[in-house]
């Protein structure tokens, strides 16, 4: 799931209110760059993009290097290869045009303070919501990259989006022709925890694969659940053994684009030191089925920043998650079930001192369960349930029109229903509806300003082109 709601932890500045309102989604996707490089149709790697098939997972774990186009090559005097470069760069473009309608229009935030009683325009079209340019494919033998530059139509901003550069080496042992055992050992250099993952249960590539950036986002989410995306850099080592076992350890450190550099008090939520990330998973494939179970997590020390110095005591977030995925890929029918549960323990020593939080410790639990179906990768739908619960905190989760919590609680739950139509494998037309049973702690008057959870129910239309 790619909701990236902003934790409303630092008072009620309008800046954060704007961010929270505008939301909340980091879309994730598949790219025709890979099709150009491999000569294979989208269906080889994806059920319905961006969700990966077993082959898609193998392709990524192998470092995005599988190529079936002419190479520009070089060798040294000892006949060692010094260059193997795609003769045509694996570039592609993604365009998303969206429409958002919420059940009740949102408050007008104004430029110098909210206009009392005024409502912002409802029924917003973003053209574009996002436009991305990708380089996605081989750099050299065993070295490849997924790199995305995005123009964000809502923020009117252009910058580096999800990026994963990886090296992968294949080993076989335990027999020659029989290939009794085989493993991939790889390195990943990336800017978003879980962007390197190959299952669609983890946050960076999780459900929903796209969602409204205009509708309000819930008040809290775990650090690993999108809060560190594009503001850290991590290098990690992974292995994939016998097409069954996956293990990875990655260390992240702050790498924040934009704002003041060196990083200073004008930044917010800045990772301190090295943050270890870990991931273990087991996958079993049989016939047309595959199932995986796994665990992932991250231990992150964070400076709240936002006007306070990036030094001294820190907050600490320990995220421990479990996930499972089931996939059936038939000739006509495709089905997937995705589940993830994230438990976050928060120790907010710095935020308490800086008066951003009341409690020294909090917890936050996130659960997401999604079922997807597609007929011949042409028409399909998804139904997802999401539930966030956690300890109340009167400062961290304060009242504010539309974005706050009247009872200081992060508890939010609801469902997402989607219908997708793909006239071509690289074009998706989508209608999505998000319904909230509870939003930021309450069903009725959750913000203390008269707004109900169901007022945030969102109708979202998407035209998603990849070419």
């Amino acid at each position, binding site marked *: 799931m790619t909701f990236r709601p902003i934790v409303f932890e630092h008072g009620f500045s309008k800046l954060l209110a704007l961010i929270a309102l505008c939301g909340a989604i980091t879309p994730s996707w598949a790219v025709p760059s890979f099709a150009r490089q491999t000569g294979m149709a989208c269906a080889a790697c994806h059920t319905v993009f961006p969700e990966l098939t*077993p082959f898609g997972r193998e392709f990524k774990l192998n470092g995005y290097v*599988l*190529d079936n186009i002419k190479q520009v090559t070089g060798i040294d005097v000892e006949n060692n290869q010094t260059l193997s470069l795609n003769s045509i760069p694996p570039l592609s473009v993604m365009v998303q045009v969206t429409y958002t309608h919420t059940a009740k229009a949102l408050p007008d935030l104004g430029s110098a303070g909210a206009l009392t009683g005024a409502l912002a325009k409802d029924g917003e079209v973003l053209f574009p919501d996002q436009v991305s340019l990708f380089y996605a494919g081989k750099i050299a033998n065993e070295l490849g990259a997924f790199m995305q530059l995005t123009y964000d139509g809502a923020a009117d901003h252009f910058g580096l989006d999800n990026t994963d550069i990886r090296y992968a080496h294949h080993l076989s042992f335990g027999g020659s022709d*029989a290939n009794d055992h085989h493993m991939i050992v790889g390195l990943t250099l990336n800017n978003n925890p879980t962007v390197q993952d190959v299952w669609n249960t983890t946050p960076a590539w999780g459900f929903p694969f796209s969602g409204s950036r205009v509708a309000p986002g819930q008040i809290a989410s775990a650090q690993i659940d999108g809060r560190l995306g594009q503001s850290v850099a991590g290098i990690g080592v992974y292995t994939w053994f016998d097409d069954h076992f996956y293990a990875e350890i990655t260390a992240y450190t702050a790498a924040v684009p934009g704002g003041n550099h060196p990083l200073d008090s004008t930044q917010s939520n800045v990772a301190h030191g090295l943050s270890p990330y870990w991931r273990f998973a087991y996958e079993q494939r049989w016939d047309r089925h595959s199932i995986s179970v796994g665990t992932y997590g991250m231990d992150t020390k964070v400076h709240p920043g936002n006007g306070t110095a990036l030094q001294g005591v820190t907050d600490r977030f320990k995220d421990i998650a479990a996930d499972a995925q089931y996939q059936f890929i038939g000739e006509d029918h495709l089905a997937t079930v995705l589940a993830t549960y994230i438990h976050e323990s928060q120790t907010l020593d710095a935020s308490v001192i800086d008066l951003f939080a009341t409690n020294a410790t909090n917890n936050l639990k996130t659960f997401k369960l999604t079922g997807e179906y597609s007929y011949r990768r042409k028409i399909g739908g998804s139904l997802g349930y999401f539930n966030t619960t956690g300890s109340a905190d009167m400062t961290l989760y304060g009242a504010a029109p539309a974005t706050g919590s009247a009872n200081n609680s992060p508890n939010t739950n609801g469902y997402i229903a989607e219908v997708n139509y793909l006239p071509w494998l690289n074009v998706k037309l989508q209608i999505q509806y998000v319904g909230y049973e509870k939003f930021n702690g309450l069903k009725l008057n959750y913000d203390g300003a008269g707004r109900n959870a169901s007022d945030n129910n969102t109708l979202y239309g998407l035209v998603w082109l990849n070419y």
Partner: protein
Amino acid sequence: MNLNHAAAIMSAVVCMVGQLHGAEVSADAMTDAQRSALQKTIETCAACHGSSGRSVSPTFPKLAAQTAPYLELQLHAFKDQTRADPDAQAYMWGMASQLNDASITELAVYFSKQPATEGKGGNTALIAQGKQIFVEGVPGRQIPACASCHGAQAQGNGPFPRLAGQHAPYLLKQLLVIQSVLRTAPVMHGVIKDLNRDQMQAVVAYLESI
């Protein structure tokens, strides 16, 4: 088409492919670089066709113990895009596009030498019906015995592929795309012209079971 006719066509095709196929590639004769390149290619194939050509998903055929001439013919057909069924286009046109004649032969020989997988049981009555079609054909519809080309044990014969132990859904799909001429297979077009879907399901159930 009667049995004699089918056998005559088979002989002609075997002879033709025998000339195409040429000498077998000996692993001992390969340089280290060639061996390493072959190993890398095999690893790529394994992503879909499984370790040693023992695929798990019925979307992808098992290649283990497949006849080398058939594999070679198919790889050439993917490369020159004359085999154009949907999965061929989606997967194999790209995969085969950069293979040269030598590597195609090496791959064909490698997979032909891998041990075959064991058959998988299923509906006994269906399997028995399928066996009858495989062994005797369907005389009433002028459908010759499959065994006449593919071998008594469905072990394959030169350009006629091994069918024994193959995934039933894969075989069924091939029969359908050949019948609809999405996949070109000159001998088979005539042979299965009047084979109906029930008969197809029976014969592929039998083949998967052996």
